[in-house]
Structure formats: structure tokens, C-alpha cells
């Protein structure tokens, strides 16, 4: 099994000499372009640095979208694999991160489409219900909250996630991209392949619905 010894990679410098923020913060989009240019010439170390820099945001975005940690892990990988193959077509007209979100958008859409197939086998459908899988069987260590964080914060997260789950995929995505990931309207339009007006109206309806769903919780804060 291949394994790279990049211990603490999110904190330490990569071989390219570029510091990477622990939270994956994009402190220097211009530096992304520099790494992309190197990667486009086949420099895998530069691409590895890009993956390290952006994997946190992509993983968080996808996980917030689909609520399946194991699948989010797989899909996040798929994003970076697809990004590699599409790298020759990347032009530095928009941020590299925005371009990655676009790929993630497509990957999640394809995954969602796949999940709707009815299996031809004789499996009990309950097997496909992740809730019935042992909840302690997280496929990876949970990144969860520190034990001493207030219960109310955890409860709020549960409520927000539950409310988000009731949105359509497009509405959920636009809220995540705008209010969590902090993208601009124009960037979201590029990611989702929609017009600016469509993005604005989606965000409007999504927030309206969330507001109604969270009314009690929101007004009490």
C-alpha cells in the first residue's frame, strides 16, 4: 500500500516550499496558479501540494452536501483525479478553488444520480439505508467536536443539517457555496452552470425555507 510520509502535511511546508494553512485557507490564489502551472507540466509534487491545500474545502463541501462521510471521502478523491485530467484545460481566468468546486458539483450530481438506481439484486433495501449501519462504524476517525464544546452548538448543527437536508440539492448547494464556503454570486454561477439571476433566486428561496425551518432556533439566539 502506497503511503507518503507527509506527517503534519497540513501544517508544514511541502516540497514546493509553500506553507499550507491548517484550515486550508486560500491565502494566496496566485500561488495556486503557480502550482497549477508546474503541475500542468507534469510536476506531481506541485499537484500533491494543491491537493493538500484544497482537500479540506472539497471534503467539507461534499460532506455537507451528501452527509455520507465514506462516500464524501471517495468523491473528494474523484474530484482531484478528474481535476488532474482536466488540468490542461484550466485557464487562470478564475480561481483554482472555484474550478475545483465546479468539478465537485458535477461529481456530486453524478453520484446522486447513481444512488437512485434500483439494484437488480435481491438485497433487502434496508442495507442501503446508512442509518441502519452501525453508527459507531464510522469509516474513519470522526473529526467531530471537542468534548467540551457546548451541547447547544451541537444541537444547532443537528438542526441546521436537518433543515438543509430538506432542501433540494440545488438549494442546499447554493447555501453551502454562499454562506459556508463564501463564494461570490458570480463564482457560484460558474460552479453551478447557472445564470446570476438563477443563483440569486435559488439563494433567496433556500434561505427563506431555511428561515422557516429554523425559525424557533434562529430567533432564540
Amino acid at each position, binding site marked *: 500500500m502506497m503511503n507518503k510520509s507527509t506527517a503534519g502535511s497540513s501544517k508544514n511546508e511541502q516540497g514546493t516550499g509553500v506553507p499550507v494553512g491548517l484550515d486550508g485557507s486560500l491565502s494566496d490564489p496566485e500561488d495556486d496558479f503557480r502550482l497549477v502551472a508546474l503541475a500542468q507540466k507534469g510536476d506531481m509534487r506541485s499537484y500533491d501540494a494543491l491537493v493538500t491545500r484544497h482537500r479540506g474545502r472539497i471534503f467539507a463541501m461534499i460532506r455537507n452536501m451528501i452527509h455520507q462521510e465514506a462516500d464524501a471521502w471517495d468523491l473528494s478523491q474523484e474530484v482531484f483525479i478528474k481535476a488532474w485530467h482536466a488540468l490542461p484545460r484550466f485557464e487562470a481566468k478564475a480561481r483554482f478553488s472555484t474550478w475545483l468546486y465546479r468539478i465537485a458539483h458535477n461529481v456530486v450530481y453524478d453520484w446522486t444520480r447513481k444512488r437512485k438506481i434500483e439494484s437488480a439484486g435481491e438485497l433487502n433495501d434496508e*442495507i442501503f439505508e446508512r442509518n441502519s449501519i*452501525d453508527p459507531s462504524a464510522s469509516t474513519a476517525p470522526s473529526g467531530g467536536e471537542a468534548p467540551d464544546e457546548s451541547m447547544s452548538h451541537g444541537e444547532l448543527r443537528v438542526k441546521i443539517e436537518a433543515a438543509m437536508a430538506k432542501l433540494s440539492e440545488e438549494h442546499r448547494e447554493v447555501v453551502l457555496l454562499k454562506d459556508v464556503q463564501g463564494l461570490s454570486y458570480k463564482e457560484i454561477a460558474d460552479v453551478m452552470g447557472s445564470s446570476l439571476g438563477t443563483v440569486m433566486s435559488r439563494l433567496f428561496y433556500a434561505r427563506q425555507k431555511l428561515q422557516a425551518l429554523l425559525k424557533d432556533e434562529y430567533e432564540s439566539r
Partner: protein
Amino acid sequence: MTHLSRIFFLFAFLAALLPGRMSAQEDPGKGAIGQIAVRVFYATDGDPSLAGDKFKKVSDKTEKLLRSETRLVFKNYLLLGKDVQPLFRSYENWAQPLKPSDEVLVRFEARTLPTPHSTPLDVELWLSRKKILKTDINLVGEKPLFVLGPQWRGGRLIISIALAPKENPDS
């Protein structure tokens, strides 16, 4: 009406037609491109009857194949269960060889279209409803992937994942 609602009322006319979804069409991804056979063997150096009296010994061919692998050599082998499921072009599928028990589940998906000489798969092995193993394998002909699994009743379970022959998948 809250401030927010009043302000956003102004944008009601901004609502534009949402991009149309893909029109419904036949999905070639649902086509079966092969079949996967998952078997569960009980291997033990002790008394095989501990597994239960309903299980049969494996075939000579299977026994020979198991014994050819150093880590899989045991005195006795029984077949506990088997499941054959289609391999879809673009979708995952599950095998449940010990149905109705879901103690052993195998999830598999084609990574790329198979060739006459290889079938690349992504495979997950779930035991006791937990994902235990994930691997990408390349099935070739009748060569199975064996997984030496958990202990049970003095022996161990061996999970076999292989291409099912097209002519007689139940063989």
C-alpha cells in the same frame, strides 16, 4: 413579515427558469457487464461440524485453490454461502452471500469497462455492518480474490470474490 422577507419580496421577479434537468432517457450505465460471485467459506483445523450440520465440503477444485495459498491452508473447508450479482457498467451493487444474515456484505463497482483479460473493480467488504476493507482489485478469469476474515466457531471465514462464469454463474 420580517425585514428579510420584505426585502426579498423585491426579488420575486428575479426568479428565472431553473436550468432544465436532463431529460429522462435510457441509462446505459444500468447495463450488466458481467457477474460477480461472492462465496464465504468456513476454514478450520478443528471440528468442521461446529459450523453446523447443513454445510457441505467445498469442491476439490476449490479446496485445491485454497490450499495453494500459504495463508489459507486449513484442514477443513465448508461452503457457508454464495451470492451472484450483476456487475453494472456505472453503478454499484451489493452481494449478500449469507442472506438473510448481513454479517458479510460485499459492495462492488466497476472502475472501468472490463476487457477480456481484466475486470477492474472497487470492492468494499463489510463485516457486522462495518466497512472493514476497501480495495481496488483486478479480477482476471476465474482467479478470485480471497480475504482471510474473522474468526468464528474455532475457525475463520474466507471470503472469495470472483467473476462468475457467464455460461453457468451458479457453478
